[in-house]
């Protein structure tokens, strides 16, 4: 078997008065699509931060394609999509993408930029400032920006929250395409049905630990909901 895309061993994040993660073990193979489910505050975002190397675990080790994620060179292999846009309002779509393609040293950047603009159907607005965009358009551009350097590992932190229907459909399509290309994808979400539709595997984080790790194919989303996000705990996030 090849090196796993992601190998997390006994990771805890426990700083001062804050407990975020405890004894996390997770191995993801290249090409897998894993959904991370759990309530707010269960540690999903912290887990993604540790995987992306932005945050240091207090204990344990993380390996991304066999090397340390806080190693700067390694970061070219991953992309993050979250509620944060990572875009400059005072630049055009074109300028934003050109900037990031220079930072990520994207080969043939002009061609690549054009290509992603076409994928998100924004070619006609590419010379307009991002500040003039509608919310949905900005979100599409965010997705394009993340895919610009063809990351081998995609980390999606609640990417569907706040998206309009059009953008959701587009994101789902793009994610399917990414999956076909053999990219590894980790997705945190509250939407169990979308998770089922997209991913092969899921893990459930509860109280800072992984409480379930299973395959999507033989699971019924409603059963997960009843088991882990039962009405007694308000069902706020489900």
């Amino acid at each position, binding site marked *: 078997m090849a090196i796993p895309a992601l190998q997390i061993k006994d990771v805890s994040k426990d*700083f*001062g*008065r*804050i*407990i975020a993660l405890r004894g996390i073990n997770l191995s993801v193979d290249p090409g897998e699509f894993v959904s991370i489910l759990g309530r707010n505050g269960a540690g999903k975002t912290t887990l993604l931060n540790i995987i992306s190397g932005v*945050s240091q675990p207090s204990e344990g080790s993380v390996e991304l394609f066999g090397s340390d994620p806080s190693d700067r060179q390694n970061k070219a292999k991953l992309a993050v999509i979250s509620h944060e846009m990572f875009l400059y309002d005072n630049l055009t779509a074109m300028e934003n993408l050109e900037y990031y393609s220079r930072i990520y040293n994207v080969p043939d950047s002009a061609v690549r930029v054009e290509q992603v603009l076409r994928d998100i159907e924004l070619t006609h607005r590419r010379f307009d400032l991002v500040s003039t965009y509608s919310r949905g358009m900005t979100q599409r551009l965010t997705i394009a920006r993340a895919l610009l350097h063809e990351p081998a590992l995609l980390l999606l932190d609640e990417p569907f929250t706040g998206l309009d229907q059009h953008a959701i459909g587009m994101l789902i399509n793009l994610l399917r395409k990414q999956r076909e290309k053999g990219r590894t994808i980790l997705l945190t979400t509250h939407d169990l049905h979308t998770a089922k539709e997209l991913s092969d595997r899921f893990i459930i984080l509860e*109280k800072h630990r992984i409480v379930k790790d299973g395959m999507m194919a033989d699971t019924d989303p409603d059963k997960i909901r009843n088991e882990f996000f039962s009405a007694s705990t308000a069902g706020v996030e489900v």
Partner: protein
Amino acid sequence: MRSKIDKFLLIVLFPAFLTCMYLIFQWVPQIKASNPAEQIAQRIFYFHVPSAWLGFLAFFVVFCASVAYLATRNRRYELISVASAEIGVLFISLVLITGPIWAKPVWGIWWTWDVRLTSSLILWLIYVAFLMLRRYLPDGSKRANLSAVVGIIGFIDVPIVYYSIRWWETQHPKAVMASSEGSLAAPMFFAFMFSLATFTLLYVYLIRKRYQLLKLEDMLNKQFKEMEIL
């Protein structure tokens, strides 16, 4: 073990401070000065200089703890740096208070923009900013990182600040210990050293207590958190 050391320190500190008072106000001979007010005011020196020394020591500890934190990411060093910065600010505040009390009868003014005075004030401002920064940030590893960076930059800046204003004329009394001529008479020297030692012990005691308190706070918060989790 920990509490034993603290108890010992406390037992030593009480009589030490009483002795300090006796030495400073009774035992040390009156200095010769034309101005009678100056004769009394001079005794503030035994508090003023040890406070300044402790301020520097405390900030040096902030620097070391900040470096140690960035190297290890151990919460322990973050807590030490905060504890030490707080105590340092306290002592430099004492310096800034006792200085003018002495200066008024002797120089006739509370304050002058002299090297020592200005650099002490800037020093105080640097570490007040350090503590303010921590107030503005939520607890977590981000805050620990940011304050460690400021703790390092701040300390590197301290000698530069002093150096930068040195070309100004100074009115401030010379570092008495250093010069052979006009150096302290033997009893004064003894009283000063005694006071310095007592203050340093006080620092050790205070930082231990503050550190323990911060750690207890952490533990308590964590326990609440665990209760929530379970």
